[in-house]
């Protein structure tokens, strides 16, 4: 230990920190989660346009329940790939809150876009709104989560 200079020790600490950061970059949800979410969004949007309101409500509740049952293990953000399981200490506890918060924002955006399109007289406004948000969720979900994590330091 006496032979190790401070500069060497600093480099070693930087190496260890770099390794930890590389693992932290792996925190997130599997790509398939975002695609399933996007598909669900689209189906519910289409349902809202063609089904009676009570059936759409049941479908939405069922989708939410399915999300709770099947995705709850994923929401920790520790199993984005099948190659590693990030430790709870590195992933932190705020990823589920961040993801659920994102979903609430997406719901709000869908409603606002649908109302705006409807006000302009667009046919099937809910389908168009759901389609737009579904595309954002499917293509940009992982990236949006990464940015939001950085903002809220989760």
């Amino acid at each position: 230990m006496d032979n190790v200079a401070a500069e060497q020790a600093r480099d070693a600490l930087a190496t260890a920190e770099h390794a930890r950061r590389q693992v932290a970059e792996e925190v997130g949800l599997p790509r398939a989660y975002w695609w399933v979410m996007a598909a669900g969004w689209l189906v519910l949007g289409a349902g809202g346009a063609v089904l009676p309101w009570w059936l759409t409500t049941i479908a939405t509740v069922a989708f939410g329940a399915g999300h709770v049952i099947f995705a709850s293990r994923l929401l920790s953000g520790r199993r984005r790939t099948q190659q590693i399981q990030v430790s709870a200490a590195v992933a932190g506890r705020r990823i589920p809150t961040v993801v659920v918060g994102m979903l609430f924002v997406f719901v709000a955006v869908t409603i606002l876009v649908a109302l705006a399109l409807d006000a302009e007289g667009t046919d099937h406004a809910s389908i168009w709104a759901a389609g737009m948000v579904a595309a954002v969720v499917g293509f940009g979900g992982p990236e949006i989560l990464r940015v939001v994590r950085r903002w809220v330091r989760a």
Partner: protein
Amino acid sequence: MTQPKFDELIHPSTRLSLVATLAAVDWAEFAFLKDRLELSDSALSKQLTTLEDAGYITTERRVSGSRRKVRARLTPAGRDAFDGHIAALQAIVGDAARPLSGPAPRS
């Protein structure tokens, strides 16, 4: 509080990266470690064997479909050694940053 304990086995750069990576995960597969550490199969195997012989990690061989996969995880002894080593490195850096003690020069 972790006792600082410099660990010669962990200190080499590649091994430190490997142990630091494993300290941040519950487990990692061989392919992930190989990719992130940019090591060949044989080089990574050698490092894992060294750490396994020291009791710092365990490896587990699994069959997934037609492929065999190796999973590595840090043992409690490995985690203690890593934490102690990091504490020792921090102590070295801290000592170097501390001003030398002694009487202040008179003007």
